[in-house]
């Protein structure tokens, strides 16, 4: 079986250019690839579109890339923990597309599994419905208005896992899992930063199969 290539964080950062769309795993920075985020700050690649749950904190993970003004657009569910994100949005320097969190996760999931989108009741009658097709869908609980949501994909998904093996198999720990498994499907290229790299994981312990993972970065390298 093909092995995932072990690369440095700088090499991982070199996979993208100005203007690209990236996904970054994590929830308020927990389960985010910190070494890769630092390398992306160092590379100073600009005008990126970010797909991530949030923008963490100004001194953490993707939050540092916000402070370094590397994004032209972000697709997220929450920006309240990073004041710089709000400042750039208010100043018109950054486009912010807010999604309900479950809708965001499902859009990423659809992008990665070959589906064209989905209808959801979340956001009906709210600003999240603006510009979206609304359709009455039959259901067990009776007819219900639902919104059409479209899939999301990225050039590169940058993930974090507690343990990875030489085949790219990943095992997350606790709530560090969050958006990482769905983003593993939705990136054309997938990079996983792991805390520990082992020869092989017990197949029963694999959360994300290594067939999805192109590159492994070891945390801190």
């Amino acid at each position, binding site marked *: 079986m093909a092995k995932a290539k072990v690369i440095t964080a700088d090499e991982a950062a070199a996979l993208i250019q100005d203007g690209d769309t990236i996904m970054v795993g994590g*929830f*308020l*920075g*927990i*389960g985010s690839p910190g070494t890769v985020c630092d390398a992306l700050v160092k590379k100073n690649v600009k005008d990126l579109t970010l797909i991530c*749950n*949030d923008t963490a904190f100004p001194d953490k993970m993707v939050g540092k890339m916000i402070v370094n003004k590397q994004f032209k657009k972000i697709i*997220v*569910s*929450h*920006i*309240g*923990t990073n004041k710089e994100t*709000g400042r750039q*949005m*208010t100043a018109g320097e950054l486009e*912010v597309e*807010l*999604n*309900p*969190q*479950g*809708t965001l*996760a*499902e859009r*990423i*999931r659809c992008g990665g599994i070959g589906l064209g989108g989905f209808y*959801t*009741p*979340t*956001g*009906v*009658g*709210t*600003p*999240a419905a603006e510009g979206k097709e609304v359709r009455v869908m039959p259901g067990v609980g009776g007819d219900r208005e639902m919104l059409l949501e479209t899939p999301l994909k990225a050039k590169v998904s940058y993930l974090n896992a*507690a343990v990875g093996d030489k085949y790219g198999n990943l095992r*997350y*720990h*606790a*709530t*560090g*899992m*969050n*958006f*990482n*498994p*769905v983003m593993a499907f939705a990136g054309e290229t997938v990079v996983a930063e792991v805390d520990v790299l082992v020869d092989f994981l017990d197949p029963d312990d694999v959360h994300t199969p290594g067939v999805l993972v192109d590159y492994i970065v070891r945390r801190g390298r």
Partner: protein
Amino acid sequence: MDLREKVGRRGAKLFKDGDLVNLGIGMPTVLANYIPEGVNITFQTENGAVNFGAAPGEGYEDPYLTNAGAMPLTIMQGGAYFDSATSFALIRGGHVDATVLGVLEVDEKGNLANYIVPGKLVPGMGGAMDLATGAKLVCVVTEHCDKSGAPKILKQCKLPLTAKGRVSYILSELALIKVTPEGLVLEEIAPDTTVEEVVAKTEATLIIPPGGPKTIEY
């Protein structure tokens, strides 16, 4: 008894034994402290866990185990972790029995607004829209009026909505109000208030049940 304790004690009695519950950030979390004896509740955190426990002691934090506010948690026997798509499948799919949310405004149609004040406060909805839409029972907990004394329970929300027509109960330091197709029913009032005071501090029309509201038992 302060606002939080009042809301916590009465609110915790809205749950049924065996419920899966998600408490919003802020005031709703206080309900976890007052679950009646003999009632077993499983709590979910939207970032991907059920059956979590209290904050760990200093030095015992696991950097990968936090709540939706990035504060350290512990996990209990029977606990489980899952990814965000699964977490929101539990929520959207109707597998969460109850959620308790804070609000900026709530109205007599059961609409709630709690995630944005245009031009002032734009943190994003996070999981609030999903919870308000997907949980089987949506309860909002709030100060009856805002800091300036203006009512928060309105005829019609003015702020952008988080969800339309999804609220079942409104609980404040003064009253427990049930949202019905006919309007807001004043089911219970605190022992230290009167129907007149609650009506005066509520913009929405309140339906007074025959015989008057019950007194809240804390």
